[in-house]
């Protein structure tokens, strides 16, 4: 499956990098697809409410009321109608891109199955809402949509009377049918909204609103489109005539020609198969689940930093169970933990300077413990050649591939790194500089790894990088998977700068015993 995902991931990485040259990192549209979907939903809702004021649900009045909006009150109702349509198209675009991107990044398996599964009915409901909307205009396109939709439904053996007979002749259609459609057109988006809320239940601080600049840009572009190319009806529906040539909205109706011409069992079979595949994808195959974060109560003082930093709401603070005089203890929900290690990076007891006792923090990743990380840092640092200023690079497994890069230490996520490790590297003379890298900025695979790291370095979020660490010896470059050349250039530049930097004050205390022994 990864072979299938890789080309798409490469495409998204390229597109993200290209957009990164014109957008600030947080504005990058590709990292805001879900939030843009929400934004389009609100535009659709607001414009829909306005349009509904003027809409007449009578079968003979519906078309005229839409025409009134489009031509008589073009400056407001007409614009609202166009916004309603184009925001709906935009919603389909960002929704499909969101689905493809999450799939390409392998963010749909493991604990993420829940959001994926809830996303599938949302996908279906968005289409149902859009199609019922086209129906309501009751122009020739609506006639086509109504007839093809009902003929397709009639392929199922559920209806005693063919639903398509409602559109057999002009005298067959009743306004009651339109009342049903308007009910569906309102009810389905409301159900979708509930599902969107459920969709976000397993993540903390979901990004529901895009950055303001992106919102303004997206809205203005839709508004400009609405003014330049307003949505128009295609002549009144007439069931005594067959519409000849139609202007389909390919975002919603792209499959209608297939529904019209292919046998019903084939199209229903294909739709059902696609739906089943989408629902089964999180288990095709299941994600190898890494060992989840583990709490060591002897070292947990209940500070709740891990719970505050966890991007997946996998940590809860519960009452103390071991009798120690702290108010709470961290508890990991294995069904939510993705083993990103951000909790370990937030733990104040993940302190590499600790020698008096074993380095076991209050919360840790069993497969990459803080103790193992310290050993790796020392091994990598000692192996760095001294012919140039030494730079130790901390990266993550979702950013620039670190294989073959001298002086690199890989983390589950850059947010796993406790800032004290930077202090440790510099004060123990393992390197002259520390460079942190990872995913592209604002596109952290684990959502908050970059944000928390930046905040910890800036001293605005605990645990903070100590003041004594010379800031000119710490750099970050959020290069992403395709940023190998950028990282290499950044390391080289850093080395050049370090060569002319003021000497690093070294602590007077002797190096730890095993370091001293190996140096000897």
């Amino acid at each position, binding site marked *: 499956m990864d072979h299938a995902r890789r080309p798409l991931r490469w495409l998204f990485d390229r597109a993200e990098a290209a957009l990164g040259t014109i957008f600030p990192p947080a504005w990058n549209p590709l990292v805001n697809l879900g939030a843009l979907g929400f934004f389009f939903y609100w535009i659709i809702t607001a414009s829909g409410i306005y349009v509904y004021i003027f809409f007449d649900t009578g079968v003979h009045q519906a078309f005229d009321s839409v025409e009134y909006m489009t031509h008589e009150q073009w400056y407001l109702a007409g614009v609202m109608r166009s916004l309603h349509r184009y925001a709906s198209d935009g919603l389909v675009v960002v929704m499909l891109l969101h689905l493809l991107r999450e799939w390409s990044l392998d963010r749909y398996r493991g604990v993420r199955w829940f959001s994926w599964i809830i996303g599938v009915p949302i996908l279906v409901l968005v289409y149902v809402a859009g199609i019922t909307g086209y129906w309501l205009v009751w122009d020739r396109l609506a006639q086509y949509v109504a007839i093809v939709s009902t003929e397709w439904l009639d392929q199922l053996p559920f209806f005693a009377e063919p639903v398509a007979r409602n559109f057999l002749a002009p005298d067959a259609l009743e306004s009651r049918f339109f009342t049903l459609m308007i009910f569906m057109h309102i009810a389905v988006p409301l159900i979708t909204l509930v599902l969107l809320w459920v969709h976000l239940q397993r993540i903390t601080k979901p990004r529901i609103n895009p950055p303001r600049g992106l919102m303004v840009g997206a809205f203005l572009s839709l508004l400009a489109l609405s003014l330049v190319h307003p949505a128009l009806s295609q002549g009144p529906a007439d069931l005594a005539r*067959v519409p000849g040539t139609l202007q389909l909205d*390919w975002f919603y109706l792209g499959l209608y020609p297939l529904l019209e011409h292919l046998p019903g069992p084939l199209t229903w079979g294909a739709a059902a198969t696609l739906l089943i595949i989408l629902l089964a994808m999180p288990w095709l195959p299941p994600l190898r689940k890494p060992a989840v974060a583990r709490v060591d109560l002897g070292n947990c003082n209940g500070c709740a930093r891990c719970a505050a930093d966890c991007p997946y709401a996998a940590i809860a603070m519960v009452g103390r169970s071991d009798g120690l005089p702290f108010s709470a203890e961290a508890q990991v929900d294995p069904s939510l933990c993705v083993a990103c290690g951000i909790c370990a990076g937030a733990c104040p007891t993940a302190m590499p300077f600790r020698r008096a006792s074993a380095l076991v923090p209050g919360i840790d990743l069993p497969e990459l413990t803080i103790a193992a990380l310290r050993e790796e840092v020392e091994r990598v640092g000692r192996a760095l050649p001294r012919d140039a200023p030494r730079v130790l690079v901390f990266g993550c497994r979702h950013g620039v591939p670190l294989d073959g890069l001298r002086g690199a230490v890989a983390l589950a996520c850059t947010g796993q790194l406790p800032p004290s490790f930077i202090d440790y590297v510099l004060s123990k003379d393992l390197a002259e500089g520390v460079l942190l890298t990872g995913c592209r900025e604002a596109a952290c695979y684990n959502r908050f790894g970059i944000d928390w790291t930046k905040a910890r370095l800036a001293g605005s979020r605990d645990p903070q990088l100590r003041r004594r660490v010379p800031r000119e010896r710490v750099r970050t470059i959020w290069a992403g998977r395709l940023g190998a050349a950028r990282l290499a250039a950044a390391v080289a530049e850093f080395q050049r700068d370090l060569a002319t930097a003021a000497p690093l004050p070294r602590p007077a205390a002797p190096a730890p015993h095993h370091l001293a022994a190996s140096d000897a």
Partner: protein
Amino acid sequence: MREPLRWAGQTVFFVAIAAMVGLFASWPSYRQFPEDQAQIKLSLSHGAQRVEACRRLSAEEIAKLPPAERRPNTCARERLPVHVQLLVDGDLVFDEVVAPGGLAGDGPARIYRKLIVEPGQRELVARLKDSDRPGAFDYEMRAEVSLAPQQSLAVDFRADAGGFVLR
């Protein structure tokens, strides 16, 4: 990249996205039906006669029934299939025997078929048989119709209206 260039790039991006949305919201056009043809929709939903005619229950049979279910007649549920033919200018364009719907075969037989025909004067003959009476069809309609290009003519069946109706 310099700030003005970034702004220009963003503008180009938003314009391109808006153009893409506007374009595929209505283009390319789709020719759903040939403009020089007409359409006949043959559609009906009709319950044929029952396989077994209703019969009067004897006094003994009525007495055996629970008091709340006692009735003078009993009717088998299953219906006969419906045989429908449509001829256009003497050509048989539809000829099917359709089974009744429902799990017990007691529902109406359903037909919904679209036929493309040349416009102009056409002679239509529609026939339907819904009984086990041997021989001829139970209903027949003959009609001369003038079909315009893109016209859609519905051939429906309403037993309460006496048979086939054109709509």
